């Protein structure tokens, strides 16, 4: 167990590779209760979120989920988040923002002063009152389907979310995830968490569902080419450099950081986020430099690990844009020794549909 953003988290339950493979072949369960959950109620919530996020929230139908970024004025990324538009059984609508655990405090402090401009909006931090369980893998939807008597899970499309119940306890079911697999993220009341976890494990017992820790979560998201805050995203990195153009809706909108992002978009990017496949077995880790012919650092690895699916080391890195073309050979300095790597299109792994 390791301390992580105020929570005690397992790196692994059994073996990172085994947990990783369970997710790719059947399903894995992740306790992601450490992720921050902020609820926005009241008239003006959409306008507040529009002001804060790189993507439009107003006009999102009930049941929709959207990925977006919270930027500062200079376009640096404060966090990457998911926003859901939900409706309670009694008919009241609200927005839920899921933020990175390590950024929860920063984001609530960032948002608080803006609430003054939206007097009818309340923000409540639901993180400690609730728990979050991700069930990810090709068997997740089929197996979890039987857990929800009032919901036809096969009809819940990707990036959609709904409030339903599990044995008469409320649960938010969201068809989202951070592994490159199909699956769900469940938000339940903290006191129901253990029971829901056990029910999912029990439902998946014959299909060998496995509990998975932070280690597998990292190798899975890396294979899926997904950025991780503090690695591929930070206040020093803008979303365009990070390759998240799709999450920046710049047309006819104004939000915090929009000017900086428009300027950035108008010029060629000096650096680009790329995937790397390494020759040899030695993995490049975060912080390893990409070096030129004379050993000068020209880029940096932000995440790296052996890929259990591909059987070779992979990494994500920022390199000068002229070296971002797939197939380009680069040299990574791994603790003093040069290692050849090739630029590879992201993601490294794409599930079959």
């Amino acid at each position, binding site marked *: 167990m390791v301390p992580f953003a105020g929570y005690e988290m397992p*790196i*692994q339950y059994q073996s*990172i590779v085994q947990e990783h493979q369970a997710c790719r072949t059947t399903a894995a369960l992740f306790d992601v209760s450490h992720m921050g959950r902020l609820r926005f109620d009241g008239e003006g919530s959409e306008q507040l979120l529009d002001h804060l996020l790189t993507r439009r929230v107003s006009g999102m139908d009930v049941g929709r989920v959207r990925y977006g970024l919270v930027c500062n004025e200079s376009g640096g990324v404060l966090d990457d988040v998911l926003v859901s538009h939900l409706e309670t059984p009694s008919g009241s609508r609200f927005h839920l923002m899921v933020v990175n655990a390590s950024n929860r405090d920063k984001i609530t402090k960032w948002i608080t002063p803006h609430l003054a401009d939206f007097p009818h909006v309340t923000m409540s931090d639901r993180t400690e009152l609730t728990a979050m369980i991700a069930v990810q893998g090709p068997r997740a939807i089929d197996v979890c389907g039987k857990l929800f008597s009032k919901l036809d899970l096969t009809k819940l499309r990707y990036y959609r979310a709904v409030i339903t119940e599990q044995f008469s306890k409320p649960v938010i079911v969201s068809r989202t995830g951070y592994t490159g697999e199909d699956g769900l993220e469940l938000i339940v009341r903290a006191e129901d968490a253990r029971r829901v976890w056990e029910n999912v494990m029990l439902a998946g017992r014959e299909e060998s569902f496995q509990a998975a820790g932070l*280690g597998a979560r990292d190798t899975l998201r890396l294979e899926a080419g997904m950025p991780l805050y503090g690695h591929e995203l930070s206040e020093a990195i803008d979303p365009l450099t990070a390759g998240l153009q799709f999450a920046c809706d710049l047309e006819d909108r104004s939000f915090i950081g929009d000017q900086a992002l428009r300027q950035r978009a108008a010029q060629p990017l000096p650096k680009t986020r790329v995937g790397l496949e390494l020759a040899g*077995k030695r993995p490049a880790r975060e912080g390893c430099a990409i070096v030129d012919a004379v050993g000068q650092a020209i880029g940096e690895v932000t995440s790296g690990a*052996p890929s259990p699916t591909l059987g070779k*080391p992979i990494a994500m890195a920022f390199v000068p844009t002229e070296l971002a073309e797939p197939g380009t050979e680069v040299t990574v300095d791994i603790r003093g020794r040069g290692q050849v790597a090739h630029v590879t299109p992201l993601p490294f792994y794409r599930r079959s549909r």
Partner: protein
Amino acid sequence: MNPAELLYAESHEWVHVAEEDGQKVATIGISDFAIEQLNDLVYMDLPEVGKQVEAGSEFGEVESVKAVSPLYSPVDGEVIAVNDALTDNLETLNEDPYGEGWVIKVKVTDEGHLAKLMDQATYQKQCAEEG
């Protein structure tokens, strides 16, 4: 090797000392406790024969999916043999950590450091505290 008769470093290397041609030779490996903790090994970096090592200095590294772990020499001396077969057969470390999974042999130049190593019982106590 019989793990009960080996010496252990705090950093989880085991040492077996034998007399060879009037010289003290230390065979160094990694304890099964450490191998199990590392789990999912993917890479190993070993020194060249002839390298001088000092007690407490890094002579190589072993890398798992989650992290890189340095290997520390428990003794002063010169590397006289390296188990190069390991780098392509890392599972040997799991299967036979005290036999085929030996890592290097060192001609010991200063026996003083041997006295600082632990016997199995003391080492097991350390592992119990870490585990």
